[in-house]
């Protein structure tokens, strides 16, 4: 996974990995994500299962924090209502950069079953804050949440810290030529 993949034979080469500073920083960041403990609705119960015995979220280095100031990413688990939306925005703004957002469940992605007649439901949390990973499901299984989490880790792994603009342009070219 990530940086350790480059270590094809740890015994012969003495366990030395050659990498850029960026690689190592990203490796460290992606393997110790702290998230803002924030349960909204049904998905939060599956999220609790994820923290408990069977799924054990913490083995990925993911630790809950009760305050946005110490959190790397926020997991929006459940229906975002209009009354709640402003608070989420405030919490998001209180988080320190770099920050990420995982939107878990149909409700947070698009309003879910409440999309049509839910006069008090925000149809998708991406209307107020940027979302990096969407996890579908109503509610998603804990495995799906873990998958979403790993997607976020690989996203952080590839993130540019130095020469951001050049790399962004490079990525864009790749996307344009359908190579990514």
């Amino acid at each position, binding site marked *: 996974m990530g940086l350790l993949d480059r270590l094809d034979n740890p015994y012969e080469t003495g366990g030395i990995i050659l990498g850029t500073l960026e690689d190592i920083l990203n490796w460290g960041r992606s393997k110790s994500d702290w998230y803002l403990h924030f349960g909204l609705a049904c998905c939060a119960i599956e999220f609790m299962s994820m923290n408990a015995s069977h799924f054990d979220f913490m083995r990925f280095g993911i630790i809950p924090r009760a305050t946005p100031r110490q959190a790397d990413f926020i997991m929006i688990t459940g229906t975002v209502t*209009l009354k709640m939306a402003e608070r989420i925005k405030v919490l998001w703004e209180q988080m320190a950069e770099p920050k990420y957002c995982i939107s878990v469940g149909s409700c947070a992605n698009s*309003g879910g079953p409440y999309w049509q007649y839910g*006069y*008090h439901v*925000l149809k998708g949390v991406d209307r107020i804050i940027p979302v990096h990973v969407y996890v579908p499901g109503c509610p998603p299984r804990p495995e799906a949440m873990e998958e979403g989490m790993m997607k976020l880790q690989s996203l952080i792994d590839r993130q540019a810290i130095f020469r951001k603009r050049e790399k962004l342009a490079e990525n864009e070219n790749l996307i344009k030529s359908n190579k990514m």
Partner: protein
Amino acid sequence: MNTTEIFELLREKFKDAIIDLVDNPPSDSFINVVPEKLFDICLELRDNPEFDFDYLMCLSGVDFPTNLQVVYHLYSLNKKHKIVLKVTVPKENPKVPSVERIWRSADWHEREAYDLFGIIFEGHHNLIRILLPYDWEGYPLRKDYKEPETYHGMRVPY
């Protein structure tokens, strides 16, 4: 006691304030009462040991094409009987006396009915919106309600 007996006893005491008894099984039978006397009727229902309705199960507002209705589902834990009361008020002036002082469980139920239907409960100590934000406009559970385009700059429809 069944609903008919309760109706007879109430009729004796409150005369015209008790409008009628509607009974067509299998749906629940209910008693229509006038809103002005509602508080006294409810007090009688709770305090008279024959009735002993100490438990308010449910209080719901209903929007009908011409008027608004408040439905009270009462239950007695000791006597194990129940009754349904209904008051009907016009849409222009939806005022119903509050029964919050009789059953404290009515407190939040009445706030909810005010929030979603705009029924004003007279005598309620704190009649403010409970579910929706305080600056919300309109009463969503009325049949003619149209959801707003935006709320605080956020688009509401899909």
